[in-house]
C-alpha cells in the first residue's frame, strides 16, 4: 500500500526540499511554500502581499533590482544567483536560487517563480576561497616587488663592477710594457688572470639578472663567421690563467654553425672553468667540438671524483655550488648560464659522471 503523499502535488510543493516563492510582476509575493516558512520563521499571512525585497538584506535588494529583475525581463530566466533573505529573528538566510518568468502570448510578465536552496556552507566556502585569493594576490605582489628590486640591484651592481675592473686591466697592461724582473711579470700575469676570471663572473651575474628580469638571454646568431677561432681564443685564455693544467682541444667543425659565437665562447669558458675547478689536477681537461649527425656537439670532460648522485639533479640551478677549495669557489652561476645559452640555441646541455670521467655535452641542431 503506497502512501498517498507520494503523488500529492500539493505536498510536493509545500514540503519540497527547496523553498518556492511566486512573485507578481510588481515584485510582490503571491505565494510561498512551507519549506520557506520553516526556514525564515514567518507566517504565510505575513509574507503574502509584501515586496520580495522586504525580506532581503540591503545588498540583496540592490542586486535584485539592478541585476535579477532586468535579466528576468530580458531572457525570462536567471539561474544560479546568490541571494540573502533575512529571517524573522533578523539572522541571515543565505541561498542560491533559480528564477523563471511566466509570460503571456505577447511576452508580458505574468509572474515569477523562484526556487531557493540553502547555501550557508557553500557561501562560507566561497568566502574562504575569496579570502585565500586576496591573500595570495597580496603575497604575490609583494614577492614580485621584492624580487624585482633584488634583481635590479644585481644588474646595477654587475654593471658598476665592470668599470673598476677595466681600470685594473688597463693599469696592468701599462705596467706590463715596462716590467723588468720575473717577479713583476708574474704579478702582472696574475693580475690579468684575475681580471679575466672576475670579468667572467660578472658576465654570468649580469646574464643571470637579465634572464630573471624578463629579457632572457639574447642571441646574435651568425653562421658566416667561423666559430673555431673563438673557441681557440677562449681556451688559450683559460690555459694562461691555469698554469700547470693541461687542456686538450680537438676540432672537427666541417659546416657553418649558426650560433652566437661569443655566447658559445662563454659556454665553453664556463664548462672548462668548471672542469678545472672540480677535475683531478694531474689529468687533462678534454674539449671536443664537432659537427656530426646534423648537430653541433661540444663536450668538455675531466677525470676525478664523480659528481655525487644527490647533486646531479641540481647542477644547473642557479647558485648551486659543489664541494671545492675556497680559492676556486665561484657564484654557482656558470653551469646555470651555460644551460640557458644552450636553451637559447634550441639545444641541450647534458651531463654524465662516472668514476672514469665527468662529461658535459652541449648539442644544438644545425640548420
Amino acid at each position: 500500500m503506497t502512501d498517498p503523499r507520494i503523488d500529492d502535488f500539493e505536498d510536493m510543493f509545500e514540503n519540497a526540499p527547496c523553498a518556492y516563492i511566486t512573485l507578481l510582476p510588481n515584485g510582490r509575493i503571491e505565494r510561498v511554500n512551507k519549506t520557506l516558512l520553516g526556514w525564515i520563521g514567518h507566517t504565510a499571512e505575513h509574507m503574502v502581499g509584501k515586496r520580495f525585497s522586504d525580506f532581503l538584506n540591503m545588498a540583496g535588494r540592490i542586486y535584485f533590482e539592478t541585476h535579477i529583475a532586468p535579466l528576468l525581463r530580458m531572457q525570462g530566466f536567471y539561474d544560479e544567483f546568490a541571494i540573502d533573505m533575512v529571517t524573522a529573528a533578523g539572522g541571515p538566510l543565505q541561498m542560491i536560487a533559480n528564477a523563471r518568468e511566466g509570460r503571456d502570448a505577447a511576452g508580458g510578465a505574468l509572474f515569477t517563480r523562484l526556487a531557493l536552496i540553502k547555501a550557508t556552507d557553500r557561501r562560507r566556502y566561497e568566502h574562504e576561497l575569496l579570502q585565500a585569493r586576496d591573500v595570495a594576490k597580496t603575497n604575490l605582489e609583494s614577492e614580485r616587488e621584492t624580487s624585482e628590486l633584488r634583481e635590479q640591484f644585481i644588474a646595477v651592481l654587475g654593471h658598476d663592477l665592470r668599470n673598476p675592473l677595466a681600470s685594473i686591466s688597463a693599469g696592468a697592461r701599462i705596467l706590463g710594457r715596462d716590467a723588468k724582473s720575473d717577479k713583476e711579470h708574474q704579478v702582472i700575469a696574475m693580475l690579468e688572470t684575475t681580471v679575466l676570471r672576475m670579468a667572467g663572473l660578472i658576465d654570468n651575474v649580469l646574464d643571470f639578472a637579465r634572464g630573471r628580469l624578463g629579457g632572457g638571454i639574447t642571441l646574435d646568431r651568425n653562421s658566416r663567421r667561423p666559430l673555431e677561432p673563438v673557441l681557440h681564443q677562449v681556451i688559450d685564455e683559460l690555459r694562461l690563467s691555469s698554469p700547470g693544467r693541461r687542456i686538450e682541444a680537438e676540432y672537427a667543425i666541417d659546416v657553418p654553425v649558426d650560433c652566437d659565437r661569443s655566447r658559445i665562447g662563454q659556454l665553453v669558458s664556463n664548462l672548462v672553468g668548471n672542469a678545472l675547478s672540480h677535475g683531478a689536477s694531474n689529468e687533462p681537461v678534454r674539449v671536443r667540438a664537432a659537427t656530426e649527425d646534423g648537430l653541433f656537439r661540444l663536450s668538455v670532460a675531466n677525470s676525478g671524483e664523480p659528481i655525487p648522485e644527490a647533486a646531479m639533479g641540481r647542477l644547473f640551478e642557479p647558485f648551486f655550488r659543489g664541494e671545492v677549495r675556497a680559492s676556486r669557489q665561484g657564484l654557482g652561476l656558470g653551469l646555470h648560464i651555460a644551460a640557458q645559452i644552450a636553451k637559447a640555441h634550441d639545444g641541450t646541455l647534458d651531463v654524465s659522471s662516472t668514476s672514469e670521467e665527468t662529461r658535459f655535452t652541449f648539442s644544438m641542431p644545425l640548420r
Partner: protein
Amino acid sequence: MGAIERNNVHVRGTGGQSMVFAHGFGCDQNMWRFVEPAFVSEFKTVCFDHVGAGGSDLKAYDKEKYSSLAGYADDVVEIGRELGLADAVFVGHSVSSMIGALAAQKAPGMFGKLVMIGPSPRYVDDGDYFGGFTEGQIGELLQFLDSNHMGWSVQMAPAIMGNPDRPELGQELTNSFCRTDPDIAKAFARVTFMSDNRADLAKLDVPTLILQCSDDIIASRPVGEFVNRTIRNSEIVFLKATGHCPNLSAPDEVVAAMRTFV
C-alpha cells in the same frame, strides 16, 4: 581604437535628431531593447556599453579614469564627438542619468534634452538629505557582489550577440545578457553608489525629464523630487511602473512619457 569600437556603439535609424541611450549599473545596452525601437523611425538612435559592460573593450578599462563618473562622462562626450552629435536627446537609466548631466556640461550644445530614468545624485544619506542607503549598506553590497558569479565568462557574450539568428546558442549559457567583468562591476558599483552629484545638478540648465517609478528602492520618490527641485529646467513624471527598470518592466509607459517630452 576609437570610442565607437571601445564602447560597442550601435547606431540605427535615419532621423535628423539623435537620441543616445545609456544603460545603468548591472546591465548593458540590451536593457533598451523595448524602448529604443519605438524611436528608431523618427530619431537616429545611439546605444552603447559603458567600458566594462556588455561588448565594450575590457582592455580599455583604466582604474584611474573610471574611478569617478566623470571618466564615464568623458566617454559619452567622445562618442558624441565621433558621431558629430548636436542638440541630441540623452536618455540615461539610473547612474547614467548623472553621467548624462556631467556630459551635457562638459560639451555644451551636444545634448539639448535629458531624460533621466530613476536618477539619484547621491545614494548615501547625508544630514537632511535622504538618499536611501547608509554607507555600511553599500559596503555590504560590494562584498555581496563577490559571491555572485554573473559575468565570469564575459568573453562569451559577443559570440551570442553576433548570432541573433541563432537564439539557441544563448540557451546554453546560464545568463547571456548583461555580463560584466566582476572586478570592473565591483569598481563601477563603488563609483555609482558612493557618488555625489548634487552640486552638478544645480548647475545644469538643459531641459530635463525625470521619470520616477513607484516603489523603487534604489531611487525612491523623495530622491526623484530632490532631482526635480535641483535642476531648474526639469519636469517629473510619476510612473505607475514599479521597481527600478521601467524601461524593461513598463516600456510603453516610458515611451509615452518620453514622446510627450521630446
